Structures are given as C-alpha cells and as structure tokens.
C-alpha cells in the first residue's frame, strides 16, 4: 500500500512536470511524433516491399520447353525426374495445343496466325511450368533441368528476378538504418528535455535529499516523465498511420500501378504497427530519461 501510494505520487509528479514545462515537452513530443511517423512510413514501406518480394517470388516460374515429337512416356519420365530434384515446389504440364488456344484468345493478331495451324503442325512446344521453393537458387535448379534429356530449352527471369530481390533487400536495409538513426536522435532530444526539467528543479531535489528522499524516489518522476512524453508522442503517429494507410489503400484499391503488385491489407498490419509505434515511443522515452537521470542527477 505504501509503495503503491509512492508510485502513484511519482507518476502524477511525472505528469505534472510534463505540463509545467509544457513548451519544452511539446518540443520533445513533436520530435517523437515526427520520428514515429517516419518509422511508421518505413515499416509500412518495408512490409509492402516484403509482400512484393513474396508475391514476385511466388510468381517466379521456370518454363521448360520439351523437344518436339517427344513421346508421352518420355514426357512423364522427365516430369518425374524434375520432381525428384531439390528445390522444386510444383510442376505442371501444359500441352502445345493448350498453349495455342490460350495465345489465340489473348490476341486477335496472334489468333489469326495460329489459326492457320492445327494439332498436327502446331509449331509450338509442350512445356512444363516449374515453381521453386527458394528463388535465390533458381539459376542452379534451371541448369539441372537443362541437363535432363528431351529438354529443348529452359527459361526463367534470368538475373532480373534475382536483381529485383537484391534491390528490395538493399531498400529494406537502408530504411532500417534510417529508422535506427532517428530513434537514437529522438532519445537524445528527450534526454535534453528531462535535463532541463532537472535543472529547473535543482532546489527541490536538494531539499528532497535533505529531508531523506531516497535516490530512487527522486529519480522515478523523471523516468515516468520520459515515458509519458514517449507515450504522448506516439498517439498522433498511430492515428495518422492507421487512418492514412486505410485511406491510401482504399484510394488505390489495394494495388500499386498494376494488379501484379498488391498492397498489404491494413487489417493485417495496423494493429501490430500501432503497438510497435507505442512501444518505440515509450522505450525511447525511457532510455532518454534514464540517460538524463543518470548523467545529470548525480545525487
């Protein structure tokens, strides 16, 4: 009960201090707000980039063209051989006839040209569509398939896919570095705010010491002050990102430029994102005030 009363007292002192130096607190809160908005943007960006990468990786297929006039039995054998390889997720067979019909449907011009052929003189090749589990090893897998008999040619994104994945990776790393930098800067700013509150209250602290307040008792309000600053600073970014992202998602119909690139559904990330933002705010506030209290409250 005693400890509880002291804790309540300390928390309320922290609140009082936030409002007593309101202009200064406002400066820190704005800093946290700006940082967290950037953090939120970075997280949303990287989540979406992750999704793009995943989507693209899922779509990456190796197209395996089979030699002309290969017997059905050999085709089946080849299929089994491919399935036996490592890194194969799925394999589907498409006959040249199916491909011809598909292509005719897709374009009128092509349809006219292909219309001149029939089943017996179809110039196209039968093919397998192979999906791999690990996109990064797609080149290796493609080469393995190429070595098998009855294979005419093997095609995949050749380099393009790998490069795209690499670019996304770099983007993710850069955003991470920027976010970490911003968080550190904010911690320093909070630290400065608390330092000034400490200076303003030097006399009070001296008297507290003289009447027998323990060091922890003197330090706790400042610690809570930092946490409160962090918490208040996280409210606007949470509000902004939630509404902002939902608005953006609806405006863009959930896609970016083409149907191929879909955005992350807000329902899936906003709750986690809010919690992450609030946690970052509070932790940064706590670290900032801890630094200030430790360095400037040598009591």
């Amino acid at each position, binding site marked *: 009960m*005693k400890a509880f009363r002291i804790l309540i007292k300390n928390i309320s002192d922290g609140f009082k201090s936030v409002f007593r130096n309101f202009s200064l607190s406002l400066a820190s809160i704005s800093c946290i707000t700006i940082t967290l908005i950037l953090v939120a943007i970075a997280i949303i960006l990287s989540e979406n980039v992750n999704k793009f990468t995943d989507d693209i990786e899922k779509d990456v297929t190796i197209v395996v063209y089979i030699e002309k006039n290969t017997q059905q039995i050999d085709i089946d054998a080849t299929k089994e051989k491919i399935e036996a390889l490592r890194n194969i997720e799925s394999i589907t067979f498409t006959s040249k006839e199916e491909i011809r019909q598909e292509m005719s449907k897709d374009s009128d011009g092509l349809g006219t040209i292909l219309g001149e052929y029939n089943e017996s003189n179809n110039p196209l090749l039968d093919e397998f569509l192979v999906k791999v589990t690990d996109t990064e090893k797609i080149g290796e897998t493609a080469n393995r398939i190429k070595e098998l008999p009855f294979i005419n040619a093997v095609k995949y994104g050749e380099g393009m896919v790998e490069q795209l994945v690499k670019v996304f990776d770099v983007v993710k790393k850069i955003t991470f570095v920027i976010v970490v930098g911003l968080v550190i800067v904010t911690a320093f700013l909070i630290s400065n705010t608390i330092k000034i509150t400490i200076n303003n209250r030097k006399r*009070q602290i001296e008297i507290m010491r*003289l*009447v027998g*307040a323990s060091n922890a008792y003197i330090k706790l309000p400042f610690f809570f002050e930092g946490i409160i600053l962090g918490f208040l600073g996280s409210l606007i970014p949470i509000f902004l990102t939630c509404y902002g992202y939902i608005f953006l998602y609806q405006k863009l119909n959930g896609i970016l430029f083409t149907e191929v690139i879909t955005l992350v559904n807000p329902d899936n990330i906003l709750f986690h994102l809010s919690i992450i933002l609030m946690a970052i705010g509070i932790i940064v506030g706590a670290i900032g005030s801890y630094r200030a209290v430790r360095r400037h409250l040598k009591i």
Partner: protein
Amino acid sequence: MNLIEIKNTYKQYKNGVTALCDLTLSIPKGDFVFLVGASGSGKSTLIKLLYRQEKPTRGEVYVGGINVAKLRNRKVYKLRRKLGIVFQDYKLLPGMTVYENVAFALEIYGLPEREVRKKVMNAIEKVGLKEKFRSYPDQLSGGEQQRVSIARAIVNNPKILICDEPTGNLDPNTSLEIMEFINKINEEGTTIIMATHDKDIVNTYKKRVITLEKGILISDKEKGGYKTNESI
C-alpha cells in the same frame, strides 16, 4: 554509545584547506549543544559531517548508530530520515504554501493523506503558524519562514535537530522567538545541535557550548558562554 560520537576526525577539502583537525566529541541523547566559533573555524563543516553532506577524510562519525564516514551515497537517506535540519536561508520552496512545504518532508514515506494532514498541522501548530498555513513563503516575514522550516524539520519527529545558524538572518527579537521554539523542541526530548554566531543567545540559554577554532576543539563546557578572547 552516545547518540552522536565523533572520534579523531579530520576533514581536509580538495583545495587543501584543513577544516577539522583531530576532533573527538560525544553528544548524548537529549542534549542541547551550541557550536560556536569564528567564520572558517570549521563549525559548518562539522554540521555538514553530521548530515553527511561531507565525508570525513579520516576518523569515525557515528550519528544515531550509523557510521557516516562509511555511508554510501545511495544510503544517505536512511541517515537523513533520523534528522531534522534547519538552515540559515530556510530552504523553502517558493511555489508551495506553508502546508505544502511542511508536507513535502512527509511525501517520501507514502503515508495516507489523513495521517499526513494530522502530522503537518501538528507541526505547524507547534511553531505557531496555524493561521498562515495557506500562505506562500514570500508572504511571510523572515522569522515566520524560519518557523516553517523548523516545522518541516520536526514534522517527522526526528531524534536530532541540526540547526546551521538558524538565526543568522534575523533580528535579535525574532531570534529569541525562534530560540524559544527550538528550546521547546529540546524539552520534548529532541537532541539539538546548533551552530551560531549569536553571543546573546548562547549566553542567555546556558547550554553546553563547544568552541572551535581553526578546526580544533578549544573548549567544551556545560552551561558555558560565548568565548571571545578570555582564557578557558
């Protein structure tokens, strides 16, 4: 062991000044001790050792059974909770009322509000400021402000009241008034150690007088008077 026990204590400041030299002294419970001496005689240093504002360079200082010389900074509050301290410059917080200033000393114990109010009003009544408990320090006279600081010092019923020139900023009449309160507190059983320059007070009250000169104890007399140049 006496309430305060000082054994062969030296205090040398970092700038080389020796403030106390081989001081040995004991003060039993309930005593009223005047600490006199010219400026720079070391009486302020001695007072500061008692509430662990300074640490002795050498020797042992026991206050209420706690070895102040070995007390770690983190644990200082344990000593301070046994003490009440009154300063020459009152050390009141200007933004707080009389009541809040006194209650400030109790906040740290996390007592229920009812109990805090009872103790605070009790202490304010003792120093005769019941009517002014809502006033702010700058609305009070010097003597009244000092009474507030005494109320703050005794609100927790300390065993020892340490006064560092409590009448230094006050006129003679007000000083005597303050002394009455301090004397009353002593009669209720609190040990008083008071550093002072005020000859009249020391000579009027006829208490134990400890005289320091250049950091050396030159006299310690029951019912003594203020020494100037007369021989001991």
